[in-house]
């Protein structure tokens, strides 16, 4: 098989395939982060950009990929797979696609490793960049946030496509022939997006009893099953934080390729690690398996583990902060709840059919700020409400009339309705309830978050429930009504003059009386008209 291949070529080829696998994983995971990716072109080679493409390396992803590969390379029967799945905030989960990097036996002996193979792998990576934006999971991943998150899982070994449901489609990204086999990159993606039931998911027992997720609970609540993946919601750390996975990063050999323009048969390619980059090389081969012995290594399940491998020095410290980083960073502050009581709000989160109302008006970046701002506002309003004394009816009326319509700015003035001189005032506080809990006015709070509002509402409601009546007044909020300085606005006017007294002429006994009078006076009227008949005739003639 390797007869025609020089040792140097073989070494180069192995290196190419290894870094191609790592870059493939980076491209796929970055494409599912939910944000647009952009890197800069650089005319001068930096030496660390494999395949002449600026693809950022997310340390955690590299780490997971290397862990999955465990020193091996994709080979015949040993494929590297990246599985992308979706998990809703209710705990439902679904595999969306599986990207497979495979190797088959078809060899291309005549191909030049360091030149043609390298360039073709580069083209294949570009194709992967293009295709990752085309599959259906891309659109889903761009909208992830509050309602669902996208997870990835890397495994090595046999390809598993049963989780993709019926009718899944395959798209081939490309192939590159090498002297030791043909590298194939494909994607199988789900077309049937009906959700699996939660029960169905829990039936699959975890492969190993490894601690899962010692961080805050995922949106589904409860521990995440072991064979779940990693969230795709990473934001690159600042330069200072780059040291989290320093060890892993530096173990990557740097590629400084130079090519020859002489005829291909005399191609010279030098691949040398740039000395400045390597500080503490961690050769992949010597990376000890961090998991319990007796484990089947070729079906490693990557999950958010908090393991403490004895031999992997410094990994313990690396894992936690990096994972914390993962949780806190991200486009929408993660699909996972980073802080208790603060649900993440997605900038373009779209509620699925199963989920409740989304969060209008709150953008991902300002999430924490908006939320705290709202709570502050609510507290202020509560205080204002408690302090307003409803002694003066006009003042109370004024206060009460400062009700907001659905699309009007929230007022700062205190609003109180207790003991107002209004009909159905007993039901006014309930109207206020409506306003406070109106999802159009404020986004719904997380269930775990204690609402200071509820306590205050409770106290208010008890005060005004004196008057009872037969029917409930629905809170009247006329649209476009302004909060004028005048106490009398449209709503008040309507309420005040809702039940005017009946007209006298319409009351029955009076009408009966008048009818009789009319009848009696008829002959007199007729006599008068007959007397003036000439006048009437002249008038009619004038009109004609």
């Amino acid at each position, binding site marked *: 098989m390797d007869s025609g291949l020089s040792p140097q070529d073989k070494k180069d080829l192995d290196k190419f395939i290894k870094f191609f696998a790592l870059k493939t994983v980076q491209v796929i995971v970055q494409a599912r982060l939910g944000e647009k990716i952009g890197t800069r*072109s650089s005319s001068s080679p930096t030496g660390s950009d494999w395949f002449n493409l600026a693809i950022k390396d997310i340390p955690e992803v590299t780490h997971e990929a290397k862990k999955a590969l465990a020193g091996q390379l994709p080979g015949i029967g040993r494929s590297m797979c990246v599985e992308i799945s979706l998990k809703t905030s209710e705990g439902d989960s679904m595999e969306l696609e599986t990207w497979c990097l495979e190797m088959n036996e078809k060899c291309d002996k005549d191909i030049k490793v360091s030149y043609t193979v390298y360039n073709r792998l580069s083209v294949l990576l570009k194709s992967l960049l293009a295709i990752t*934006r085309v599959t259906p999971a891309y659109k889903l991943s761009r909208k992830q946030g509050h309602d669902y998150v996208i997870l990835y899982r890397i495994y090595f070994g046999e390809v598993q496509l049963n989780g993709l449901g019926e009718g899944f489609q395959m798209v081939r990204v490309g192939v590159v022939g090498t002297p030791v086999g043909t590298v194939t990159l494909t994607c199988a993606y789900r077309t049937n997006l009906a959700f699996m039931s939660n029960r169905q998911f829990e039936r699959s027992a975890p492969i190993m009893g490894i601690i899962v997720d010692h961080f805050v609970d995922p949106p589904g609540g409860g521990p995440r099953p072991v064979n779940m993946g990693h969230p795709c919601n990473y934001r690159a750390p600042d330069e200072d934080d780059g040291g989290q996975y320093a060890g892993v990063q530096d173990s990557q050999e740097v590629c400084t390729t130079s090519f020859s323009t002489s005829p291909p048969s005399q191609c010279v390619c030098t691949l040398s690690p740039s000395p400045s980059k390597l500080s503490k090389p961690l050769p992949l081969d010597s990376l000890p398996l961090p998991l319990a012995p007796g484990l089947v290594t070729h079906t490693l399940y990557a999950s958010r583990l908090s393991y403490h491998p004895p031999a992997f020095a410094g990994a313990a410290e690396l894992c936690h902060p990096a994972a914390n980083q993962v949780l806190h960073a991200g486009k929408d502050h993660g699909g996972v709840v980073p802080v208790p009581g603060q649900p993440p709000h997605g900038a373009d989160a779209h509620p699925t059919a199963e989920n409740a109302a989304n969060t209008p008006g709150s953008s991902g970046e300002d999430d924490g700020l908006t939320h705290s701002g709202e709570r502050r506002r609510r507290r202020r309003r509560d205080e204002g409400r408690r302090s307003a004394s409803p002694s003066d009816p006009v003042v109370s009326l004024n206060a009460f009339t400062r009700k907001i319509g659905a699309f009007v700015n929230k007022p700062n003035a205190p609003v109180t309705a207790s003991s107002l001189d209004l009909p159905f005032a007993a039901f006014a506080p309930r109207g206020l309830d409506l306003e406070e809990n109106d999802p159009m006015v404020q986004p719904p709070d997380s269930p775990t978050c204690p609402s200071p509002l509820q306590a205050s509402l409770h106290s208010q409601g008890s005060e005004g429930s004196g008057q009872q009546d037969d029917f409930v007044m629905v809170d009247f909020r006329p649209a476009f009504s302004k909060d004028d300085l005048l106490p009398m606005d449209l709503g008040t006017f309507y309420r005040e003059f809702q039940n005017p007294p009946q007209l006298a002429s319409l009351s029955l006994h009076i009408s009966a009386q008048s009818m009789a009078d009319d009848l009696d006076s008829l002959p007199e009227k007729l006599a008068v008209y007959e007397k003036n008949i000439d006048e009437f005739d002249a008038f009619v003639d004038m009109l004609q």
Partner: protein
Amino acid sequence: MNCRSEVLEVTVEARQVEEAMLALLHTILLHRSSGKFHYKKEGTYSIGTVGTLDIDCDFIDFTFVRVSSEELDRVIRKAVSEFKDALSSDGMGQISLEFYQKKKSRWPFSDECIPWEVWSIKVNVVNLANEQERQICREKVGEKLGEKVINVVEVINRHEYLPKMPTQSDVDNVFDTSLKDVQPYLYKITYQITDSLGTSVSTTMRRLIKDTLAL
């Protein structure tokens, strides 16, 4: 050597023409651009790094990847804009992206341009009656463009003929070296507008967008 010719066909609304063309042309150029070559002694060279950028379309449910080069983007946008302006609101047209090599000829003959790959994108413009149809069109065109990208990738990954890597003296005959940050193969963009009868209009506009050795 025979020139490879590929045809892609799309049906779009008038306001989607620009983005659809940009998406396809940039996808092709992404695969046909390399980093800048830096020639060193002894005939070896090193290659610069190509960055990429995700571009969301406004009128189509689609995101495409292009090379991170503002200069190249400007050139392509200019060509597409001319094509779009020439295209009527209800017509058909075709924009072609041709990769070629220059072959030096002896004086007095001018250099020959030998195409080795031509991509023709046929565009059919439709008018839609109401907003609902436009919404459906948005999604449908997005899906169609996705299929076209898969077609492009399929063709390119057949790894058929590519010009040999040139020596330093020859690089301008193979690559467009005028850009600062990337180096696509020499290319030109031309377009044709078909009138409603389906015949090619006699005034076929032929615009040379890039010619590095224009004398």
